[in-house]
């Protein structure tokens, strides 16, 4: 059985990559299991996805403890314990990592017994974490590494999995995956199917008896208040509420009262101010404002406007000082 794990951040396309690879195996007559794994879904959070493929029905389930191939789309995840990138890596495991470093650096840094391969890409890439079509690139390289997936099945899998995104997107992804598939040619067939754990020589689980502990210890209370102030939850926002102060009738409380995150404060003049570091963009305020003085604009547009404004101001200051 092939046991393959993809690690990346929410938004990098790891779930899609696992589905493309799973589907490509399936088209080749393999029994397949593919699944993503994440907590509360949000962009940038560590996620992983896995694929099992075998010629016979698969009874194993859930997290892959002994992977044959681990793909890391974002090398900053390796240092995050919660991402569990290195879990169960053994001498038979191939690590395919998207990184500016050399394979030797990772072999040395991690002291792992298996082979490390840097995700091959064309040309100079300034920031590998921002590579376009990263998911399909990883899927394409992985398909070549296992050595049993013909390019035609990889392409057919991309057509099926991305059909809902339209022809143009599908074609671009097929192109990228094909490039990755060709670039990985020298590593074709590096990944081999792992064996099953035998019931004769397994590592005994180190079970313990959980001791009874008093409620003062065993109650799940979070004692540290205000930790949420340190988390810039505003980064989750895709839409931004913008107040038109000409329409605002200074009712003093409606928007700030309804804000579920307490991210709207009313200043001394009676005008509401939005704390953009913590506004998640739920737009409840837009719906509640009696004189309709709050509108929602796309976050990316808001950001580019803010950048342009900052540039203008910089020019003005430099002109004024010169």
């Amino acid at each position, binding site marked *: 059985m092939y046991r393959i794990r993809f690690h990346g951040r929410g938004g990098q396309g790891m779930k899609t990559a696992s589905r493309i690879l799973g589907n490509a195996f399936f088209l080749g007559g393999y029994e397949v299991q593919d*699944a993503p794994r994440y907590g509360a879904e949000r962009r940038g959070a560590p996620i992983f996805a896995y694929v099992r493929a075998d010629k016979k029905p698969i*009874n*194993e*389930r*859930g997290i892959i403890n002994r992977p044959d191939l681990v793909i890391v789309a974002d090398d900053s995840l390796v240092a995050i314990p919660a991402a569990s990138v290195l879990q169960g890596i053994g001498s038979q495991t191939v690590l395919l990592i998207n990184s500016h470093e050399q394979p030797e650096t990772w072999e040395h840094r991690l002291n792992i017994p298996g082979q490390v391969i840097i995700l091959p890409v064309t040309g100079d890439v300034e920031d590998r974490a921002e590579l376009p079509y990263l998911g399909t690139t990883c899927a394409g390289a992985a398909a070549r590494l296992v050595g049993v997936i013909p390019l035609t099945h990889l392409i057919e899998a991309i057509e099926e999995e991305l059909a809902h995104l339209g022809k143009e997107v599908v074609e671009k992804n097929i192109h990228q995956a094909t490039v990755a598939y060709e670039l990985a040619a020298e590593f074709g067939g590096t990944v081999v199917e792992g064996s099953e754990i035998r*019931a004769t020589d397994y590592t005994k689980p180190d079970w313990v008896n959980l001791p009874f502990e008093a409620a003062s*210890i065993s109650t799940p209370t979070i*004692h*540290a*208040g205000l930790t949420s102030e340190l988390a810039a939850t505003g980064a989750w926002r895709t839409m931004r509420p913008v107040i038109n102060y000409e329409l605002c009738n200074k009712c003093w409380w409606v928007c700030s009262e309804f804000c579920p995150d307490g991210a709207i404060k009313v200043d001394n003049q009676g005008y509401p101010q939005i704390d953009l570091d913590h506004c998640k963009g739920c737009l409840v305020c837009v719906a509640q404002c009696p004189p309709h003085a709050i509108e929602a604009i796309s976050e990316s547009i808001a950001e580019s406007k803010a950048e342009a404004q900052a540039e203008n101001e910089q020019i003005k200051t430099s002109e004024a000082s010169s």
Partner: protein
Amino acid sequence: MTRRLLTGNGAAAWGARLAMVDYVPAFPITPQTEIIETLSEWFDNGDITGRLTTMESEHSMVTAAGAAASTGVRVFTATSSQGLLYAMEMLYTVAGWRVPLVMINVSRGLSAPITLEPDHNDIVAARDSGFLQIHCATCQEVLDSTLIAYRLSEHAKVRLPVIVNLDGFYLSFTREPVEIPDAEAAARFVGEFDPENTQLRASMPTSQAVAVLGGTPYSYFRYEMHLAAQEALGVYDEVTAEFKNQFGRDYSSLETYRNDDAEFSFVMMGCFATKAKEAVDRLRDAGWRIGLVRPRLLRPLPEQALQNALGDKKAVAIIDQNISMGKGGVLHTEVASALYNLSEKPLLISFMGGLGGRDINQEELFEIAQQLRQASKKGTPPPPRLLYTADELREMRKLQSIAKVERQELTSNQNSNSDKSHD
């Protein structure tokens, strides 16, 4: 008939589609939401006809489901975890109305502390509600069980609502190859819903068991529900025999795997049972005589089948993915009560594991087998055990020490603040 990769949620939606459901009251909750999203897309595109209504809560959702079913239409709904608990009052109520409907529950652990990951405490909480329960282990089984559930629920002898249960993440978000039956073949199998006298109409007001009753009529109606649930066992056998005939897949009320000649057995519910199949294969490779027993029905409980499958074993491990606080694993209690009056019976060992998505790995299943052998040699079972390792406890201690430091900092801050206020 097509074979394609589907998640457990996708398979559930396909089940509803092939059962030609008329009405879907819906409320989202992780990890179930994909089911109603898929159905709403199909309703929007005109792939299926009928109506999906988003409700303001699961309590209203189950009320709407029961009310719609009592007008004689085919109803489907889905929930999970806290949603199932929020609907609990209405589960008991609509079951008492004796209206047929099918609800999917995607199992997820219960709060507090909160988790998104699976265990069975949500579904076992609905054990006594009057809803029958079918527990699935694969995505294929989710689709097929949804079709079977309509036949069971709408059967004239039964007419009780049915829950089809699948594990969150491990099935709900996991794609596996699923054979989707042809629409005509599925329609032939599920058939038309004959609501008999369940035909509530605006012009013909009837009242669904709302009268305040004394013990005599109350006992009659409640015990009739119990008898109907027991009757459902035979109906289930008939329906699944017909299903096997038509589609070739076998879904007995109690799945047994390499169990006939076994000395020892694992007993598990839900999709982690396929992990135990793998362990059985490896243990058989190593010369063990061991098998797996998986109740597909929890209500009605296939007691006779459990006695037949387990009565002659030396020792049996029951691995529960739930805890009844102050007692332990619920399935353990169920199996124990089914076997108690047999003159020859196995030792039962209770394990609890897989809580809140915690994995149960192959090595643990091998070790459970070792404990079965040791117990049968000694003639006494070890005490119930939570599957929990020294590494996990160390991890927990780390978290607790952080909490302790935070608590101390908070207390010292408060003290210094109160000092200031004295100044």
